[in-house]
């Protein structure tokens, strides 16, 4: 086979697989969010949409929603800035989708005698790329808020820009520890480095070597994704629907997709950086090897599936955590958000950075 064509096919296939995976999760999670919220609140949740009388616990609701969004009138408010108003949802959605490019979703596989990384692009700047691209989403929100020509969206947009910028700082700093420990910003290497054991017992996952960093990163991620308890930009009690108040039809659904994509991608990054990505605990290339020497061999195909499954499972769990947290914790007040960001998160992440460096420089390592 023509190597160039093969590369192309592989590249397209990887993009397709990753995109399909994330989009499916996005769709499923709109349902999970509603149904989960309902059950948490002793309600029944969506259960009306039916195809041929089959209700399937409301699983058709995302489809019905999508159809509704597609067929609704594409409305542009009179006062809106027409160009920016239309660009804004793209700015919100596109960068989030782009971040999936660098996430390794499985170990390298050998196909037709060639080693293929299960990652769309194994950039050497890895995580920095994620920061750079996801930093763009703030433009979507701010543009949407400003171009709507309405006061609630504007307030929502301003809030979210302040909030996202603030937490971006702590988010970046909280990851520094990870880079220092694993000596890389390339995600594939970070995942590979998490395959080992810590003190011979624990998997050498980021969460175990950087517990504080994990907590800080988790919190910062929620703030970045504008999810509860940091969903002030669309705090409906005070801002109607925040920056997307004036949006309807498919443009609104793009904002919704961006939010859920953010959740999925955030979950993927979290699992990659702190939970070993596709690593399965105590699973080596050839089989399980438990601490203490016990273990058994497994066929490579099963190992591969276990590892992919491990990644999928982690992503699903952390995406669910977003939902779970949303229906558990009430929204912060705006000043609380800012205080937490600047007075707690930032000093703590700096302290974490300092402590990590200190430990790494301790003699005897």
């Amino acid at each position, binding site marked *: 086979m023509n190597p160039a064509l093969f590369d192309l096919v592989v590249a397209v296939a990887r993009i397709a697989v990753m995109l399909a995976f994330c989009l499916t999760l996005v769709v499923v999670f709109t349902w999970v969010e509603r149904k*989960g919220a*309902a*059950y*948490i*609140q*002793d*309600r*029944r949740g969506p259960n009306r949409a039916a195809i041929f009388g089959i209700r399937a616990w409301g699983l058709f609701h995302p489809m019905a929603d999508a159809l509704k969004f597609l067929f609704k009138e594409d409305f542009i408010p009179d006062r809106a800035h027409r160009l920016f108003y239309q660009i804004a949802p793209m700015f919100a959605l596109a960068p989030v989708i782009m971040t999936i490019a660098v996430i390794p979703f499985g170990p390298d596989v050998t196909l037709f005698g060639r080693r293929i990384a299960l990652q769309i692009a194994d950039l050497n700047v890895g995580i920095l790329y994620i920061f750079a691209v996801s930093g763009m989403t703030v433009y979507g929100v701010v543009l949407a808020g400003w171009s709507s020509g309405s006061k609630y969206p504007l307030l929502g947009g301003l809030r979210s820009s302040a909030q996202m910028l603030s937490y971006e700082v702590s988010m970046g700093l909280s990851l520094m520890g990870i880079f220092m420990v694993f000596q890389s910003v390339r995600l594939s290497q970070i995942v590979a480095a998490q395959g080992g054991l810590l003190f011979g017992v624990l998997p050498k996952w980021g969460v175990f070597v950087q517990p504080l960093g994990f*907590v800080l990163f988790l919190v910062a991620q929620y703030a970045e994704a504008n999810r509860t308890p940091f969903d002030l930009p669309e705090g409906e009690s005070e801002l109607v629907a925040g920056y997307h108040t004036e949006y309807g039809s498919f443009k609104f659904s793009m904002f919704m997709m961006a939010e859920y994509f953010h959740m999925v991608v955030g979950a993927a990054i979290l699992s990659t950086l702190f939970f070993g990505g596709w690593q399965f605990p105590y699973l080596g290339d050839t089989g399980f090897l438990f601490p203490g020497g016990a273990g058994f061999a497994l066929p490579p195909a099963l190992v591969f599936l276990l590892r992919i499954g491990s990644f999928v499972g982690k992503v699903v769990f952390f995406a669910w955590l977003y939902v*779970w*947290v949303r*229906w*558990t*914790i009430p929204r912060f007040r705006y000043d609380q958000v800012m205080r937490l960001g600047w007075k707690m998160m930032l000093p703590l992440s700096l302290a974490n950075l300092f402590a990590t460096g200190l430990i790494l420089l301790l003699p005897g390592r």
Partner: protein
Amino acid sequence: MTIGIRKVARPREMTFPESLYLVEIVKGLGVTMGHMLRNIVRQEGIMTMEYPEVRRRMPPRFRGRHRLMRRPDGSPRCVACYCCATACPAKCITIVAGESPDPAVEKYPVRFDIDMLRCVFCGLCVEACPCDAIRMDTGWFTPPDDSREKLIFTIDVLLEK
């Protein structure tokens, strides 16, 4: 009789672990997860009423949508005396009286419309009716509809129930 004194919990200073929130958040997550699992396994805890299929039983004195009563022979009991229309504070009842072919009935409503969009469900029409011809004991609300005309209930609609 002594009036008891009940201690009311006052907000207190948070301890350090509490002020970190981490443990408290995990506790909260436990509560919500507990609710969710319980509701998935057993449905009894779910408060939602599946409205059109399941309907709440209204208390007997609930003032619901109106109905007009019939005589044993099926003709409306209403004699178009206009007492309800007179009593109605919302002026939502429109009656047009007509001469009944039955001299024992004499007067009957040719039209009897209740504008449900105007009705305030005060029940004064029921109080005013000298013939017990109008009642509000259907135990049900005005169902929603998609046009104003459909929500002006005519005599046929009111006699249905």
